[in-house]
């Protein structure tokens, strides 16, 4: 196992944490501000997201070009194109969590470094939620279609 295999994910995680903190995303009021349409709507989240999507989009092109030119393992990009009830239901539930607490998975994990009790509670609940099987079973059994 070579050094790059360890260094790349470590450096990536580190850069993402610094970006989230310096972009203000670790402050729940910034996340809430984006959905506070009827109060103090705040576009700081958008100012963070737009350059992030543009730069990441360029990286996707670079990764595809590299794969085509030099070969290598397939990229771990989702190939699913299915817009189904499970996706919409999941995103809607995600939004409810967002609107209440103003925390996303990334910023909450980064906030763990401060030892703040709310971050510990949030991450523990999020990990539990990610592993619960019954919401998936219900969403699939109902085969909600839109």
């Amino acid at each position, binding site marked *: 196992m070579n050094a790059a295999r360890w260094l790349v994910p470590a450096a*990536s995680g580190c850069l993402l*944490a610094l970006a989230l903190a310096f972009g203000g995303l670790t402050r729940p009021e910034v996340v809430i501000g984006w959905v506070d349409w009827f109060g103090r709507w705040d576009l700081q989240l958008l100012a963070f997201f737009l350059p992030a999507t543009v730069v990441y989009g360029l990286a996707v092109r670079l990764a595809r070009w590299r794969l085509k030119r030099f070969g290598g393992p397939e990229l771990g990009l989702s190939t699913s194109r299915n817009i189904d009830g499970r996706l919409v239901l999941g995103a809607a539930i995600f939004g409810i969590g967002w609107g209440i*607490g103003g*925390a996303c998975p990334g910023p909450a994990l980064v906030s763990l470094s401060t030892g703040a009790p709310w971050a510990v509670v*949030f991450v523990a609940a999020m990990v539990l939620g990610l592993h619960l099987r019954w919401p998936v079973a219900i969403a699939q059994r109902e085969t909600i279609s839109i």
Partner: protein
Amino acid sequence: MFDSWTTIAAGALFGAGGGLLLVGSGQTPGISGIVKGALSRKHGDLAWRVVFLLGLLLGGRLAWTLAPQAFVLHAPVALPWVLVSGLCIGVGARLANGCTSGHGVCGIGRWSPRSLVATATFTVSGAIAHLAWTAFGGAS
């Protein structure tokens, strides 16, 4: 404290940091997916997820040292609501196969229709949830 140029630069850094993982390791930097995979042991690719999350914590520690004002130590809402919010985020990200980083940045960055739908959905449901939250007396 956070001027818009800092936010824009930080956003670009987020895209670059995520792009590094894709170009260097061929993996999508979706936080909820990485967390889930790191703890479910079903994947054979456990190591990079753990290393990534350790990097995330290390970066958090570094940011906490450099700019403690970037963090909020008091709970944004009462702890039981933090718990409810975390559960919704976890269940929602599992069902939707992604969160703000996976759908919001990575998915939209490559114009995935699924991610556009997911991001629009959680933005609208977030706005409605926040409106309901404040209407029923929750602190803004």
